[in-house]
């Protein structure tokens, strides 16, 4: 089976770069499943999970991105994300605390952070896409 090359890039460094089987990306209007030979798409992302699978559909890695952009063509998929964390390094209680703190503040900035934190919490609690 064919593979597609996948780059996950944050402003500070290149986080992931390998040939993989499938990637699921949180597009702004809905999740995108990217397989080798995908048509050319440019999309902006919402905060959510980026899931990376091997050719045999086993999960390799999962990340949380706080938004960004994706560029997809038949051979390559590039995700530019502003902040990237590996999903299993996130801690539920600390995120809940963050949400509580941010909820008490009222500014445009904290609102944005709050929505990111909420998406983070959702990302570690849900389990769909764990197996495809």
């Amino acid at each position, binding site marked *: 089976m064919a593979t597609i090359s996948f*780059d996950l*890039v*944050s*402003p*500070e*460094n*290149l986080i992931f770069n390998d040939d993989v089987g499938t990637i699921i990306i949180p*597009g*702004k*209007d809905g999740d*995108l499943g990217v397989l080798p030979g995908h*048509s*050319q*798409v*440019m*999309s*902006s992302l919402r905060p959510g999970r980026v899931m990376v699978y091997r050719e045999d559909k086993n999960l390799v890695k999962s990340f949380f991105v706080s*938004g960004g*952009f994706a*560029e997809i*063509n038949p051979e390559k998929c*590039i995700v*530019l994300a*502003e902040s990237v964390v590996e999903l299993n390094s996130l801690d539920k209680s600390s995120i809940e605390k963050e949400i509580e703190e941010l909820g008490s503040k009222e500014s445009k900035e904290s609102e944005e952070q709050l929505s990111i934190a909420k998406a983070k919490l959702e990302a570690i609690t849900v389990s769909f896409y764990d197996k495809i």
Partner: protein
Amino acid sequence: MPSLKDIKTQINSVGSTKKITSAMKMVAASKLRRSQEKAEAARPYSSRLEEMLSSLASSAASGEGIIKLLTGTGNDQNYIVVPVSADRGLCGGFNSSINRETFKLVKSLEGNGKKVQLMLVGKKSRDFFNRVMKDQIIESYVDLNVSSTGYESALNISNKLQELYFEGKFDKCILVFNKFKSAISQEVTQQQLIPLDVSNSEKEEEKENSSNAIYDYEPDEETILKDLLPKNVSIQIFKVLLESDAGEQGARMAAMDNATRNAGEMIDSLTLKYNRTRQAFITKELIEIISGAESI
């Protein structure tokens, strides 16, 4: 004539200066390596972003809202100049060339009847412009610590700039910074940040369009562009901060290398002087003894 003891003290003090400068050189060299790695790591992101932007730029026809970052306000009366200097000195002409260039730019813009304001990055430009153009400074950012929290600082600066831009406080923003050419040479560069200058990337875009099929956009071009443009401003600033940081370390390394070499030369010539003086003393004493003996 200085006594032997004076020269000895001088040799010692130059010697300890040499030790300090050579230590600083070592530190700068290792920091340079780290900054270079950082700059290298950031390159994929910024180059990708630029590519995406240049393929989208053509779709921005009308200049409303965020797209103004690309198309401009239609005026060019008010300028913001952002010189990026270092927080510390002892790095040769690094800071003074930034300050000189900025000063020249501001004067020439003002000569053309524009209004210029300053947003300063780094202690050295803050100190300089606090002396010469205090009333034009709107904000200064110091102690950025680029190597650890660079992106956050870049984000702060870019948010502030965009806030001012959309309030209509300025029409054009120009960055003045030291471009990192190699470990020993930096080049003072001016870059127009707002509105975005896509003229040099347009050629590449033509090439790409001819070879690549056209992309689908999700949600649509305009929405993506609206997300992309503010991010691009932060990324450009981040890139400049990293380059300037690497340049600073390079400049310091070169300056300290020079200083170490000069100190070495100075020690050599002082040692020569010391030996000559010592010889002169001995000769003088001998003459005194001999002439004393003759007179008896």
